[in-house]
């Protein structure tokens, strides 16, 4: 069983989704995270172990390698896809409550901004770190964040913006959120953002890459 867990972790780390997937070339023809996760569950491997001993550590390695410029966005996305294939099999266990996640993360690109690639990348990495991610999409108004917080009051919020003209909307959203949920933690990110701006608008953290956000979130969930 531990062999299966190791194999799944290797598949996720290397972006091997399923047997039909030609990536990575050195694993061509071999089963991927999709088949192996199904097999593991059928053989009685605990879904909690699959999440916490295979998927989360594998994605942690991926995030770490990305932070160190050892891999680039394409490899990270292939890993995220392999992780998502495994997650699909774990879905019923999340719904039943048998597998608990670290917390809920509500993510959106601020109103006025339609960029979603960076946001999506963050969502995948955070989900891979064991969090439930609620992606509100792009051009998100402050009310939508609060509506979602009404359902998940302990959630952490993430805001993304790619333009200097839209980053200022983060301040509006944070003020609106804190008006009803003063304790809510808010993380921000995007090309024009920096630490000074985060302090200026009372965001709790700015991270330059998804892995930085995962590390910060993990500290919160301990």
């Amino acid at each position, binding site marked *: 069983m531990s062999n299966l867990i190791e194999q799944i972790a290797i598949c996720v780390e290397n972006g091997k989704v399923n047997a039909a997937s030609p990536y990575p070339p050195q694993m061509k023809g071999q089963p991927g995270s999709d088949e192996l996760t199904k097999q593991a569950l059928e053989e009685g491997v605990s879904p909690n172990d699959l999440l916490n001993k295979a998927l989360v550590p594998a994605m942690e390695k991926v995030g770490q390698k990305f932070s160190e410029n050892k891999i680039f966005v*394409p490899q990270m996305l292939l890993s995220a896809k392999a992780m998502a294939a495994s997650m699909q099999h774990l879905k019923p266990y999340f719904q039943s409550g048998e597998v608990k996640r670290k917390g809920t993360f509500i993510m959106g690109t601020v109103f006025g901004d339609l960029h979603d690639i960076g946001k999506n990348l963050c969502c995948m990495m955070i989900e891979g770190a064991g969090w439930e991610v609620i992606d509100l999409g792009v051009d998100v108004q402050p009310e939508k964040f609060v509506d979602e917080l009404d359902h998940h009051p302990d959630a952490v919020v993430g805001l993304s913006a790619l333009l200097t*003209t839209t980053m200022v909307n983060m301040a509006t959203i944070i003020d609106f959120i804190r008006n009803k949920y003063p304790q809510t933690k808010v993380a921000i990110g995007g090309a024009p953002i920096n630490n000074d701006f985060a302090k200026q608008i009372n965001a709790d953290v700015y991270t330059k890459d998804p892995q930085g956000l995962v590390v910060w979130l993990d500290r919160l969930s301990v």
Partner: protein
Amino acid sequence: MNKFVEYRFSYRELAVSPNAAAPMLGYDGDLPEEITEMVREVMDETAGCYDIRGGYVIFDHSHFNKDGYTLTVGEATFQIGKIIFNQLKRSSQIAAFVCTAGVGIEQYSRAMLAANEPLKGFIADILGGAVVEAATDKIQKELSHNMKAKGLKITNRYSPGYCGWQTVEQHKLFAQLPSNLGVRLTDSALMQPMKSVSGIIGIGADVRFNQYTCRICEATHCVYRFKKVSVMN
């Protein structure tokens, strides 16, 4: 409004290679073979997605004011900042340009992201950018060629959002361009289709084109600087 010189390009004639996407995908040199294969696959699937068009309009009169580093063209006064001001100040004319790859590539990218094909979605997004930059390069070359015939040279191209020129000034720039090109601005000055480029180029007998200008810019977060890519070919 002065005459807008319009161009249309087919995707094929731009001849964008997979490696054109390499810097924005994070790679310093050529793409690894397996990623090249994936890029080619996306290129094949998206070849029919593009509606590539753009052009420029030349303003014969411009006024530079060092106090505030402004440039007045037509009825608009742009606060272009010190960096761009110094690159353009010897210009006798200014060309305002816009170019778009169309909305199809953006739609493909979003569809792939929604279908749990994040890498394809990401590659399409990068390719859309590479295609519109390649088309803008062609327009810039055409402008250069046309000006050379008159004994004039051109500068690099500069866009709101780069080199200290605020993105919000897109609104003033778009007021100088024809509205029928299919590119519109949102209230937050975001161009739609998103894979569009706009900006200005200086023209004159005493101006110069620099091969790489990022070292003069203070925008340390800029993706072009990070990848050491010249925006102006």
